[in-house]
């Protein structure tokens, strides 16, 4: 069923080129460190990988070269973690064993850590596939190291510009990743994102596109975060027949020939149904499937389409896709639910305007009363530049502010977040600022007298901190236990 299998030549496989003794010290050091940090109660996803890479930089290619069928890479600004989790579920449903760097640590050392934790002490890996979520900046290098069967791309939005400089640079890095694919491999591209379709021109690989062909109410939600509104080829303003969110939709350049390609995989039906499930009709390049998904939000529909298209490219039977996607649960930190005796807790990661606006939309359409806790750090993994907070439409919350009996702001940039909400129109008496995340979390969780739902919006490192606090309360599994 699955193309490009390298099971046949596994015996004489890649790793025989490198003497095993060069690799093992790195693996042992990483495993020891990983064990130590777990005993200390931290989910060490970066340090073990960094150490192993410093002992032998070829460790990723050595380990990744052992998977029976091959590797898959998922990249793009938003939706990497969810999409790669969905692909993993589909392949597992089809009976395959998978390795996945699922804690969102997607730089080269995070990938090294994930591979090592799945390797034996003798440096052997027995999985069918490695599904690797890869940071856009690391994409060219990781593509060369892991020679994947295919690259799946979600979208390009503004994110962590302090690290990459500009959106153009991110786009170039992704293009370099695509150009580094070996002949015969494939790419999966979001047809609705003009920044992605503009960079596909590698004739040696097969391109599969996916897109939405449904009607949604007009979207006035986030004009300010529409990163790309001009034609990537001639810079004329793009005309849109449909916009699903941000700059994703049905676009065409009025000046040149550039336009959205007709997607291979189409979403043709979208109907919210009972139990917060959404029923979907998908045209999988001619094969029609329908399924119910519990994943909220249009952004998740895109993730789901990317995963289904990747599965189709691997020739996974439609019934496996339907049953895996029907069971999907939100990925690590993206939109998670916890329950205590007094409270329902929702935690939704925010890290850039487009993603954050989608979270706000979910919060507003939910129409339920929520205590809010917004936690913003500016560490390297968050992006040190927090200007994006000003492009998020927090103004939209104002029209439903009676739904928020209390608002807590925390993190290293708690004060900036307070200014943001003040300028969105909230009265400053309503804003409780405490940069100590532990204290703010405790206050919010003990404020159940004023409400029974707590909605937490952290950015990345704040999410890790709060997740640890939730874990300490016995809520949710620690992420290093989920593998």
């Amino acid at each position, binding site marked *: 069923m699955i193309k490009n299998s390298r099971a046949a030549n596994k015996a004489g496989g890649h790793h025989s080129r490198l003497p095993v003794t060069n690799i093992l010290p790195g693996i042992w050091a990483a495993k020891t460190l990983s064990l130590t940090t777990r005993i200390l109660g931290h989910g060490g996803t970066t340090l073990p990988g960094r150490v192993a890479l410093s002992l032998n930089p070829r460790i990723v290619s050595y380990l990744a070269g052992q998977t029976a069928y091959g590797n898959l890479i998922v990249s793009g600004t938003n939706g990497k973690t969810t999409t790669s989790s969905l692909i993993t579920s589909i392949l597992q449903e089809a009976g395959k064993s998978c390795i996945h760097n699922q804690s969102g640590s997607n730089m080269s050392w995070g990938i090294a850590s994930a591979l090592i934790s799945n390797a034996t002490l003798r440096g052997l890996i027995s999985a069918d596939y490695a599904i690797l979520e890869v940071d856009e900046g690391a994409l060219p290098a990781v593509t060369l190291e892991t020679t994947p069967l295919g690259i799946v791309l979600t979208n390009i939005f503004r994110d962590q510009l*302090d690290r990459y400089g500009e959106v153009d640079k991110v786009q170039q890095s992704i293009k370099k990743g695509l150009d580094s694919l070996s002949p015969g491999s494939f790419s999966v591209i979001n047809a609705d994102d003009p920044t992605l379709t503009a960079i596909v021109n590698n004739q040696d690989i097969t391109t599969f596109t996916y897109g939405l062909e449904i009607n949604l109410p007009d979207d006035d939600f986030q004009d300010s975060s529409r990163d790309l509104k001009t034609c990537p080829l001639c*810079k004329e303003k793009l005309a849109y027949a449909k916009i699903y969110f941000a700059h994703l939709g049905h676009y065409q350049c009025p000046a040149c020939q550039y336009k959205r390609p007709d997607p291979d995989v189409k979403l043709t039906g979208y109907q919210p149904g009972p139990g917060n499930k959404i029923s979907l009709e998908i045209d999988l390049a001619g094969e029609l499937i329908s399924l119910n998904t519990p994943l909220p939000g249009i952004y998740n529909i895109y993730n789901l389409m990317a995963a289904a298209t990747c599965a189709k490219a691997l020739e996974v039977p439609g019934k496996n896709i339907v049953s895996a996607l029907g069971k999907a649960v939100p990925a690590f930190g993206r939109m998670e639910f916890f329950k205590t005796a007094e409270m329902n807790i929702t935690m939704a990661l925010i890290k850039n305007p487009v993603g954050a606006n989608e979270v706000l939309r979910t919060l507003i359409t939910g129409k339920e009363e929520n205590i809010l806790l917004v936690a913003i750090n500016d560490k390297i993994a968050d992006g040190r530049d*927090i200007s994006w907070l000003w492009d998020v439409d927090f103004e939209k919350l104002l029209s439903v502010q009676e739904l928020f009996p209390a608002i807590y702001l925390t993190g290293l940039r708690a004060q*900036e977040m307070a*200014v943001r909400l003040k300028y969105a129109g909230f009265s400053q008496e309503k804003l409780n600022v405490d940069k100590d995340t532990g204290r703010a979390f405790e206050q919010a969780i003990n404020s159940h007298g004023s409400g029974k739902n707590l909605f937490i919006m952290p950015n990345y490192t704040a999410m890790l901190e709060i997740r640890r606090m939730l874990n300490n309360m016995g809520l949710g599994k620690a992420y290093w236990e989920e593998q």
Partner: protein
Amino acid sequence: MQRHINIYHLYPAHLNLYGDRGNLVALQKRAQWRGIKVNIIPVEPGSKIIFAKCDLLFMGGGQDSDQKLVAADLKNRSVEMKKAVEEGMAIFAVCGSYQLMGHYYRLQNGEKIGGLGFVDLFTEAGDERLIGNAIVECMLWSPSKTLVGFENHGGKTFLGPSVQPLGKVVTGFGNNGQDKKEGAVYKNVIGTYLHGSLLPKNPWLTDYLLQKSLEYRSQDSNLEDLDDSIETGAHQEAIRLAQSRRHKRQSTRV
């Protein structure tokens, strides 16, 4: 009569990279809180600016690739714009548009993109990007006040003798990472590399721009004090972080 300010926002579709909306929101709110009416008029390439009605012109930062397009459109407006600047119209230009106020931007391949040329400065593409938190000591007031923001630019800007810098670099790179100058001030034109957004957590600069816009139309430029405790808190928070060892270590030339 109610006081009012018309803010023309240049090229929101092309120059909107670094939370520029925060600057507009700050101008708008701080005017409204004092009963001043604000109109924000978006301008795209080719559409009209009525200079007789424009009290303040705001331009943000964009991708390098949009720079040429924007520069070409600005050229068509340069005569009228220069006249207004000489008469005292305020312009607030961040990053990419700050560079366009000057004589030229020289790309790495040697190609020169001509700027408006009414502020005596020029910019050269550097071989590294200057990225990080920055604090400057700003001499628009006496005694001086601090401004704090985030910079991220590949161009290095150098000022001619007829313009003053917006401030002296305390922490960060500033215009070029060499001469400790950040931004430029010429008449009521302010150009800067700082975003973050800059105006919300530096409310005195916001008020300065509002006052200059009111004075330009001979309106009462008296601004009553506001409770700025949250804004000042964010200012101090950003200063502390910019001065922390962690941030200094992370200021990068990439």
